[in-house]
């Protein structure tokens, strides 16, 4: 029992480490300095809607308003594309991805591709320089 729990805790930290990747769509990560640039990484996923959702969307097309089912579908698809990108960056030994851009395209009827790309880099925390405690020592 304890063994299983230990395993679960280990698993938890494993998936938790995914969020340790620093992400930014700026040219740098705020609060950090880029020390090494590695490569461009990207992730993509192609998704299609299913019939039930499409039927509901057809009804919504008459009355108007937000399509919550589609909003959720696209959100989780983008998350998957991003997870793939993060996994690639991790394999290259990066700890941050900067300059992230998203793009979406309709490649076929009812199917869309969600694409995300960025630059994998190694960053260090921007530690403010402490004042010299002995200014007149030299």
């Amino acid at each position, binding site marked *: 029992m304890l063994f299983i729990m230990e395993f679960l805790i280990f698993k938890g930290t494993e998936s938790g480490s995914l969020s340790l990747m*620093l*992400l*930014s*769509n*700026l*040219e*740098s*990560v*705020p*609060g950090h300095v880029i020390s090494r640039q590695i490569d461009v990484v990207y992730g993509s996923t192609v998704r299609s809607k299913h019939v039930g959702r499409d039927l509901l*969307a057809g009804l*919504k*097309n*008459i*009355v*108007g*308003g*937000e*399509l919550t089912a*589609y*909003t959720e579908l*696209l*959100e989780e698809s*983008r998350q998957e594309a991003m997870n793939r990108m993060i996994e690639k960056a991790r394999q290259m030994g990066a700890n941050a991805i900067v300059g*992230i*851009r*998203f*793009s*979406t*395209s*309709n490649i076929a*009827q*009812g199917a*869309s591709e969600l694409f995300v790309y960025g630059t994998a880099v190694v960053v260090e925390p*921007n530690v*403010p320089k402490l004042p010299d405690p002995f200014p007149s020592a030299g």
Partner: protein
Amino acid sequence: MDNLIFQFVVFALLFSVGFGFGRYYERKHLKELAEQEVRLAHIVLDTHRFTTSEFEGQLISSNVVISHDYFKYVIANIQNILGGRLVSYESIVERARREAVVRLKREAEKIGATQIMGLRLSTTELGMQGGMVEVFAYGTAIKKP
């Protein structure tokens, strides 16, 4: 002839349902947006790429899909023949964009950020005949301690 009358009745029904519900939803949405925008006005937005900050930041994103109603669809088809501004569709895109920005600000509020840097908006058209528009917004939220 009967068939023609039936088709006309269906069309008139959809047209009026679209008009009624579409107007109701649009007014409700615009009212909600105005309230939310006032409430979240303290979160500062910018679109600069090269700005940076000494505080911690993280990527946040939000999206929204908004559909047209049958009334707008018919009006847009008529306007399409004449050309010019499609006022009925302009309001859909505008509502979607405002909603996406409001949601992005709400995401920032959730993690305790007060500023969003490098905002990007992208718009995609979904669906076969169009009319469904997706707006995706993303940016870097800055957490000031």
